[in-house]
């Protein structure tokens, strides 16, 4: 998704909220399957062979989650057999599989999200609405590697005075670790105050401060954002009409393929495949530009 990634963070965020939200909350078999297939496609484009090599994990997850439901739920009309006088029904199995597929789809979409919405984009996005919140997240993210480095330094210094946590009996080791931690903490807290004062000295919190960012909202962002908006609204309208309604219990409600049902399926598919389409378009453009030279 090299080209989809380059869009403005707000476009990416709205896209993921829309897709993951719809995936999570509509349990219609067609919608769930479409989302799952799209998520698999996105993951294989993003991670390639690495994704397929690990795909057995998802198959196991799917089977594990699909088995749980028929064991807990005994609703449904089509009884297959009885376990301890409890009916195991086709409906419960199908529901378990649908839920498992939905959870996998959400999991796979979040993998795409984690890869695309890097923390800098997240912080940029929320820095506008909730600046302190974004600031705390960014400071916390920065402190973690800083702590790691400081721990290394403290450990080395402690070694020279015989407080090596890797040697000696268990009590000595624990004592050394607690010692290192205690030094880290003192340093971190004093350092915090210094940072805070430095921030204040540089005018943090004053009005009319500008922030630097590399993200620009361009025409193409407007186009894609409105596309996402239209397709999402289309899907939600479909849901109001009842297109996403599907009952597993007491028995399956029919899946219809009237022209308007199919229209809403197509709208949802378009929403799901938007990043792939953008990617293909960019690649095609690149190739056609090359051939002209």
């Amino acid at each position, binding site marked *: 998704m090299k080209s989809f990634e380059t869009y403005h963070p707000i476009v990416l965020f709205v896209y993921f909220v829309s897709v993951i939200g719809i995936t999570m909350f509509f349990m219609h078999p067609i919608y769930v399957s479409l989302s799952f297939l799209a998520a698999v496609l996105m993951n294989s484009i993003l991670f390639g062979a690495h994704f397929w090599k690990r795909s057995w994990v998802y198959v196991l997850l799917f089977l594990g989650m699909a088995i749980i439901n028929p064991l807990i739920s005994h609703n449904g009309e089509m009884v297959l057999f009885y376990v301890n006088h409890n009916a195991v029904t086709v409906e419960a199995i199908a529901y378990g599989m649908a839920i498992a597929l939905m959870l996998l789809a959400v999991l796979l979409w979040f993998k795409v999200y984690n890869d695309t919405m890097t923390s800098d984009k997240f912080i940029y996005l929320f820095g506008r609405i909730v600046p302190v919140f974004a600031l705390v997240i960014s400071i916390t993210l920065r402190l973690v590697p800083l702590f790691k480095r400081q721990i290394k330094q403290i450990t080395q210094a402690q070694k020279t005075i015989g407080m090596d946590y890797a040697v000696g009996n268990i009590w000595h080791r624990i004592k050394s670790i607690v010692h290192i931690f205690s030094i880290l903490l003192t340093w971190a807290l004093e350092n915090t105050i210094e940072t805070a*004062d430095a921030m204040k000295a540089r005018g943090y919190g004053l009005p009319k401060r500008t922030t630097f960012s590399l993200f620009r909202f361009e025409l193409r962002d407007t186009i894609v954002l409105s596309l996402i908006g239209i397709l999402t609204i289309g899907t939600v309208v479909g849901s109001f009409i009842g297109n996403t309604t599907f009952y597993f219990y007491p028995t399956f409600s029919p899946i219809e393929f009237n022209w308007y049902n199919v229209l809403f399926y197509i709208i949802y598919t378009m929403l799901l495949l938007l990043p792939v389409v953008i990617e293909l378009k960019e690649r095609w453009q690149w190739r056609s530009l090359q051939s002209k030279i």
Partner: protein
Amino acid sequence: MQELKTNPLRNIVASIIVFVIIPIVLYIGIAFLGDRKFYFISVTIALLACVPFFISLEQKRTQTREILLIAVMSALSVAGRLLFYLVAAFKPVAAITIISGIYLGAEAGFLTGALSALVSNIYFGQGPWTPFQMFMWGIIGFIAGLLAKTGIMEKKTALILYGVFAGILFSFGMDVWGVMSLTGIFTWEAYTAALVTAIPFTITYAVSNVIFLLLLAKPIGEKLERIKKKYGLME
């Protein structure tokens, strides 16, 4: 211990959430989402519950030192979660959140817990569980802060009991999410089944909380007290 100041904006937003937004969420969920309603409602409410705390954080914008203290405590627990990532459920996050709640106040406790969940999931992967973890760890820190105001948390037995309680609370809370994501609906049978299968995790949560609380409460507490006294923070 610090006094709980009344915060008008936060209170207004909190009451709007409780009396207006949550009923709307319930209505939308029940009216339009069929059997997905439990999932939708619980995720949304877990997120909404965090909003008042983040508003009070926004209002701290000029108190840079307080903000940074919360960031340091969150970073400590994130680093702890990273350090122990190989041992399932054995994490110092809840313990550090509790300590933060005790010494920095209930609000800071909630923020430390919620931020730890959000930031550590940047490393471990975000998912629909993030709002629940944020809320559960947050509320563990919040309750610790409220209890500390009574002075009871200075006793070692209270600390141990609260560590056990926090482990159970976290497990019970996260199982609500687990049941709803696995079976789609909330039934008491499924919930009890989930709680029973999660017993080893619950025990590990509780034990790790107690161990880390006993190890860390005194050193961290003393240093937080010192820094508060030295620079006159959280007053």
